[in-house]
């Protein structure tokens, strides 16, 4: 066990638990550089990348210069400082067509950081709102999903029964929803006038909404009910533009747009960003996003589009600086996600889908 990283993890957990407001730029940078130094030292895979880019702790002066690792590298290489026998859990990227998923290894300490991080920011954004319905499988059936792990922690913290999960895994390994159970819960919420929060992936909402439409069902969920929708369709349902999905949610479930919250997260990270229906995504104080020009590698100007890069201090035992494959529009220290449905018609003759 690496004591330096463990110490950092313990300090970070404390910081997260007491973090009410943004960290100063200087403090964030100090922490990021300290973590970078530790990861450079203890994560040999990462060290090689940094050395190849000539960006070593001696050369890097500001957190924005810390070399970011593309998420795709988590598929090819073990991007971790944990020895094989230290790994207590692994989260895989989702997607049915991928041959090799991303792998993010955790030990108990790094899980503890993940849990502290996700819970604090979730609580900050959601508080407590009546019942929760998770439209995903539970942790026993989907142990490698970081999203399901997050939901499980939220469930435990709220002391909800396991039946709060109404998703399951179908024969072909894809995520499905137990419609009758979900509908029963929605009906109960209506009957008891208890606000409910539905949480799931965009495609699980499409499945649910399609089912409701086919069966001519419509709900007017009690006031205060909310939806947390997390992006990505992974070829598991038809793809709807966000606005259309949200309109359907409002129409079928009676949840107003202001109560629809989007989540942006991935297995390679330990923190999540949230956005209100039409707003920009916002990470917690211990993670920051930068929107990078793919041409120059520099941060884009306000309102411009680029690649979303994140420095997540909660990624203690893996690597904090991550280059995603998503595009975002810079909005101050927040960002809007550019949906795939908004992408231009492909120009080239490529068969590539990713």
């Amino acid at each position, binding site marked *: 066990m690496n004591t330096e990283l463990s110490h950092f993890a313990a300090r970070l957990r404390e910081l997260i638990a007491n973090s009410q407001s943004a960290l100063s730029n200087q403090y964030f940078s100090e922490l990021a550089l300290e973590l970078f130094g530790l990861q450079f030292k203890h994560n040999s*895979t990462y060290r*090689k*990348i940094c050395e190849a880019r000539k960006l070593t702790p001696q050369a890097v002066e500001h957190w924005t210069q810390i070399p970011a690792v593309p998420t795709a590298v988590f598929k090819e290489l073990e991007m971790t400082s944990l020895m094989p026998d230290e790994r207590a859990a692994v989260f895989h990227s989702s997607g049915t067509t991928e041959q090799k998923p991303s792998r993010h290894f955790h030990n108990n300490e790094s899980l503890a950081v993940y849990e502290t991080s996700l819970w604090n920011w979730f609580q900050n954004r959601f508080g407590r709102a009546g019942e929760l319905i998770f439209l995903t499988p539970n942790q026993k059936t989907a142990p490698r999903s970081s999203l399901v792990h997050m939901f499980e922690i939220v469930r435990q913290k709220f002391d909800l029964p396991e039946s709060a999960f109404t998703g399951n895994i179908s024969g072909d390994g894809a995520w499905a929803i137990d419609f009758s159970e979900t509908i029963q819960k929605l009906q109960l919420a209506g009957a008891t006038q208890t606000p409910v929060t539905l949480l799931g992936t965009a495609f699980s909402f499409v499945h649910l909404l399609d089912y409701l439409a086919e069966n001519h069902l419509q709900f007017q969920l009690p006031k205060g009910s909310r939806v947390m929708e997390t992006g990505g369709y992974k070829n598991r349902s038809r793809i709807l533009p966000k606005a259309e999905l949200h309109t359907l949610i409002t129409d079928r479930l009676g949840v107003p747009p202001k109560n629809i919250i989007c989540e942006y997260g991935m297995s390679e990270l330990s923190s999540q960003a949230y956005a209100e229906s039409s707003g920009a995504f916002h990470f917690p104080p211990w993670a920051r996003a930068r929107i990078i020009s793919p041409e120059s590698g520099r941060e884009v100007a306000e309102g411009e*589009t680029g690649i979303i890069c994140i420095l997540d201090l909660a990624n203690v035992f893996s690597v904090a600086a991550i280059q995603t494959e998503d595009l975002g529009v810079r909005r101050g220290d927040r960002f809007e996600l550019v949906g795939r449905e908004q992408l231009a018609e*492909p*120009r*080239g*003759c490529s068969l*590539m889908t990713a």
Partner: protein
Amino acid sequence: MNLPNFYFADLPPEATLSPTMIATACDTLKRNREKYLLPSKTDDIIKILCEIAAEWLSPENKFRKLALELGPSETGFSKPILEKGLDNFFRQFTLENFQALLVQELGHAERLDGFADGASVRGPELLVHVAAGNIPNPTLMSLTLGLLTRSAQFVKCASGASFLPRLFAHSLRGLDPKLGACLEIAEWRGGNHELETELFAHADCLTATGSDATLATIRTRLPARVRFLGYGQRVSFGFVAREVLREEEIITIISNAADDVIAWDQNGCLSPHVIYVEERGAVESDEFAKRLAIELAKRETTEPRGIISVEEAASIASRRAIYETIAAHRADAKIWSSENSTSWTLVFEHDVKFRFSPLNRFVFVKPVPDLNAVLQGVDEIHGKVSTVGIAAPPEKTKDLAKQFGRWGVTRICPLGQMQKPPLTWRHDGRPALGDLITWTDFEL
């Protein structure tokens, strides 16, 4: 651009098309065909096509000037790339080449005019083209073939891709207003069911280029009587034999390889994603890669890559980041790339597996022990390969062609010629005119 409103694509952007407008246009096209195209002789049409080409090749030609002046912003290709691409295309338009095409496809050059040797042919009354947006040449070629078959033609361009087909149509109209009235050029984003259902109902034959998914959708929406010619996604690669990897030849080979990578900024199905290089040449494969990278950098100064979308740039940046990581971990992998831009990228890696490039001048160079390794590497894209560009001594080229042909490649050409198919090229291995026409046998 100050062009008269002849075609739908000439209308201001705010003008919206309606199914009625499509229906009226199709009826008019058919009438005009009856009056102007059907009575024409093949020789006359060829003459006009050659005249159009001569005009486009002339530096003073109005349409060429427009294409080169406005093309960079309209099409995303730089002026030198447009110039080279269009010149290579129009240089093919010679009397001899057209004669060769007719003989190849129809057995006789006169069969479109009447019976020759017991058979004649005729083209579809209304030929509809659903054109992809990547490069203009396939659309211009489709229009050319349709003129030869005396078909009224309606070209549906992808959004933002009608610029060059439009200029071509105007140049035809300038030379021969009657023939120009047998064409329609329109632009809308694919999937507009209202317009497309109307258009498809009038078609007799429809050609479509695009993704396999797009083609499948179009096919299901076409009336059964419409002949469908789909040109789906294809990829290409290069092969350099060790015998030619010598100092005496290397400069030419590198230059040819660069020509193929930069033509239409690698956007066509005929552009190489990967160049396989045989090991143990006098110039080794990593040296080949290095020299090609230097050449790509040089070309960027003389024939720069065009403007690409942020999505395309992001796709390149992501792939570069991955290969930079791989190169940091494996001594035998290398990456060269332009600084502060995504203009060009070369990845050298020993893995023989074919890789899809994010295009826009991103090429893989892969060393291989022999041809068998290549065939193994491209196994996953079997049936999807268009062109293999070869640099090898003549005897070895013949042997390679035989083996690639047997494997299923539909076009084999010298490296450097990949994006310059001849007029007689059989697109995806299908007859150029042969698929469009219908025969009448006259048995004496």
